[in-house]
C-alpha cells in the first residue's frame, strides 16, 4: 500500500471526487492561487479552474451561506475554513441554517455540503488560534462531525462526507497534516458512526479522536513496556457517535481515560465519560478520567503552552490513577 501524508490523502481525495462528480466544487480563502494556507488544495486550481476552486474574500458567513445555497440546488460544495478558529463567524449559518433546514422545511431539501477545517493547538499560535470547538457542533442535531486521525481514514471519510447528503463538519488538525500512513489504492469509504479500535488491549481504554489518537497510541506503547495493555479507541466520528464500540471496549477493560484537545469542562470528553458510565456502569472499575487542555486561553509562551497541552506524561498519570483502583 502506498504511504502518504494526511495532507496528500486529503488532496488526493478532493482530486478524485472532483474528477468523479462535476457537482463537487471547493470554496474558501486562499485555496486557489495561494494553494491553501496548509497546502491541502495544492494544484487543484490548476487542474479544475477557478469555477471549481473558488477563492473567496475573508467573509466566513458568506462562504458558509454560499455553500448552503449551492447545496440546495444540488451542488456539492466543500468549504475550507483556514482554521476552526474562524468558524465562529459562520456558526450561525452552520447551526441555524445548514443543520436545521432539512427538518424545518419538512424534509423538502437536502444539504450535501462539507466544511473542512483544521483544529488543534501547539506551535505557539496563542489564544485565538489554538482552539477545538468540534464538541459544540457535535451537540447539534442535523450536523455530522467527523475527525479522522490517519491518512487512510482522512481519504475515506472525506469521500463519505462529500458523497453524503448532509452537512458535515470535517475536522482536520494542524499537527496531523504531515503524519504519514498507508492509504489503500482502491477506493474506500468509511461510514460515519463507526469508531475504530486502533490498538487492542485489556487493561484500560484510551478514547481519542483526531490528533489525540497518535498520542494515545504513543502512550499505549509506553504503557506496554510496563506491562499495561491499553486499548485505543479512535472515535473518528463524534456525531453520529459510536457508543457501541466504546461500551464494548470498556466492558472488556473496565477502565477508561479520554484524551481531548479541547477544554474538558463541558467538552467532548464529558460526553464520552457520560456515555461510558451510562452504558457500561456495571463493568466500570474506576471513574472515567479526562485529560485535555488546561482550562486557560492558550498562552503564547512556549513553556506555558507546553504546560497547557495534554502530553504523554499527563495521560500516563491519569491511566495510573485509574489502574490504582481495585476491581
Amino acid at each position, binding site marked *: 500500500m502506498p504511504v502518504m501524508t494526511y495532507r496528500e490523502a486529503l488532496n488526493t481525495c478532493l482530486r478524485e471526487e472532483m474528477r468523479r462528480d462535476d457537482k463537487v466544487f471547493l470554496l474558501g480563502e486562499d485555496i486557489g492561487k495561494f494553494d491553501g494556507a496548509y497546502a491541502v488544495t495544492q494544484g487543484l486550481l490548476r487542474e479544475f479552474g477557478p469555477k471549481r476552486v473558488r477563492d473567496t*474574500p475573508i467573509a466566513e458567513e*458568506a462562504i*458558509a*451561506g454560499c455553500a448552503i*445555497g*449551492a447545496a*440546495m440546488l444540488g451542488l456539492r460544495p466543500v468549504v475550507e475554513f483556514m482554521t476552526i478558529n474562524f468558524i465562529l463567524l459562520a456558526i*450561525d*449559518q452552520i447551526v441555524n441554517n445548514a443543520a436545521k433546514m432539512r427538518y424545518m422545511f419538512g424534509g423538502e*431539501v437536502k444539504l450535501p455540503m462539507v466544511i473542512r477545517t483544521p483544529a488543534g493547538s501547539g506551535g505557539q499560535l496563542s489564544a485565538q488560534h489554538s482552539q477545538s470547538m468540534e464538541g459544540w457542533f457535535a451537540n447539534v442535531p442535523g450536523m455530522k462531525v467527523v475527525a479522522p486521525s490517519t491518512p487512510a481514514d482522512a481519504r475515506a471519510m472525506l469521500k463519505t462526507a462529500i458523497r453524503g447528503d448532509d452537512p458535515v463538519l470535517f475536522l482536520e488538525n494542524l499537527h496531523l497534516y504531515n503524519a504519514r500512513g498507508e492509504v489503500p489504492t482502491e477506493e474506500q469509504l468509511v461510514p460515519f458512526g463507526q469508531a475504530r479500535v486502533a490498538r487492542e488491549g485489556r487493561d484500560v481504554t484510551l478514547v481519542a479522536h483526531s490528533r489525540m489518537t497518535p498520542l494515545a497510541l504513543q502512550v499505549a506503547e509506553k504503557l506496554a513496556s510496563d506491562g499495561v495493555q491499553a486499548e485505543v479507541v479512535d472515535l473518528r466520528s463524534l456525531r453520529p457517535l459510536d457508543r457501541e464500540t466504546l461500551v464494548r471496549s470498556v466492558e472488556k477493560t473496565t477502565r477508561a481515560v479520554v484524551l481531548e484537545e479541547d477544554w474538558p469542562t463541558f467538552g467532548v470528553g464529558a460526553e464520552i465519560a457520560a456515555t461510558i458510565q451510562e452504558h457500561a456502569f456495571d463493568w466500570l472499575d474506576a471513574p472515567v478520567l479526562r485529560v485535555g487542555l488546561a482550562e486557560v486561553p492558550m498562552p503564547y509562551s512556549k513553556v506555558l503552552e507546553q504546560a497547557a497541552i495534554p502530553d504523554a506524561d499527563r495521560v500516563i498519570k491519569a491511566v495510573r490513577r485509574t489502574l490504582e483502583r481495585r476491581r
Partner: protein
Amino acid sequence: MSKERSGRASIQSRPATDVVENERSDDPGVARYPRDQLIAMLAQMQLIRHFEERAAEQYTKARIGGYIHLNVGEEATVVGSVAALRPTDYLIGSYRTHGHALARGTDPRAVMAELFGREAGTSKGRGGSMHLFDKKHRFLGGYGIVGGHLPIAAGLGLAIDYLGGDEAVMCVFGEGATNIGAFHESLNVAKLWGLPVVWVCANNQYAMGHSVAMDSAVTEIHRKACAYDMPGERVDGMDVLAVRQACEAALERARRERLPSLVECVTYRYRGHSMADQRKYRTEDEVRAWRERDPINWFERRLIAAKLLDENEAKRIEREADEKAAAAVDFAEHAPDPDPADLGKYVYASDEEM
C-alpha cells in the same frame, strides 16, 4: 462613486399577450401590463390581505402558535416583486413571507395548514409561519435569523452561475437587515462574482420598534448599493406596478449582465411587528397617513380609472379572496397533526436513504 440607476432603467418585461385591452390607459404603469395580469395581481393582493387578517384572527384564538409576522400593508411590495419573477426563478425571504408564498402560487391551504402546524403544511408542520417552503414554486424558504438568508441567496446565485442557467434569485428582507454583517458580505460577493441575485429590501419603516433612522447611518437604504458598485434603486412600495417594473429590470440585469441590484421598496406594515407586538412606538397619525395610501385601494382605483375593472368586479375579487382565505382556515382546522412517532424524521437525508 456609486453607480446608482434611476428608477427608469429600461424594461424588458415578459411577453405581453393581451396588451391591446389597456394600451390607451393614461396610467403608464397600468398601460405596461396586460389586463389579465393586472387583475391577477389585484386578486393576489386581496388574497394576501384576507389571508393575513384571518391568520391574525386564528392566532388570537390560539389556533396558531409561535410568532406570526404579517404582510398587511405591504401587499404591493410583495406582489409587485414576486410578479416580476419567471416561474424558474428562485425566491427566498425572511420570517415575514406568507404573502410571498401566496403570490408565488403556493396553495393558501398549505400555507394556513403550516401555520396550524399540520402535516399538510408547506413544511409538514415542522416550520410554522417563519419557515414556509415550496420547492415546486421555487420558494426556497422563510428564515428567522435577521439577515441569515442573504448569504444563502448568494449561494443560490452561485449555483445558477455554476450550472450555467438563466434563472435569477430574488432575496427579500427588511430594512433592519441592512445593518447586519451578512448583508455586507452577501452583496459584496454577489457583485464580485457576478451572481444573478436581486436584493429586494422591503423598507416598512420599522424593525420591531426601531425606525430606520434609529438603526442606519444611511436612511435611504438603496444608497447602500454604492459600497458594492451595484445599481441601487428606491421605488414606491405602495405602487405594485412600480415595484414590479423595477424588479423586472433588476432581474433582467441579473440574468443577462450578471449584475446584481438592490431594490428598496418603501412601504409600511399596518400591524405590529408580530401578533405579539402591542407597543406604542409610532403615532396613530402616522399609521393613518400610510393607510390612506393603501396599496390595494389605490391599485383598485387605478384599474377602475383605466376602465379595466368595475366596482362589481372589484367586490367579487375581494369576496373570492376572502373565500379562499376562509377555505384555507377550514382546511387547516380539519387537517391532521403530524404523528408524534415521526418526531425523528427529516433530521438527516443520508439516513433516510440508507
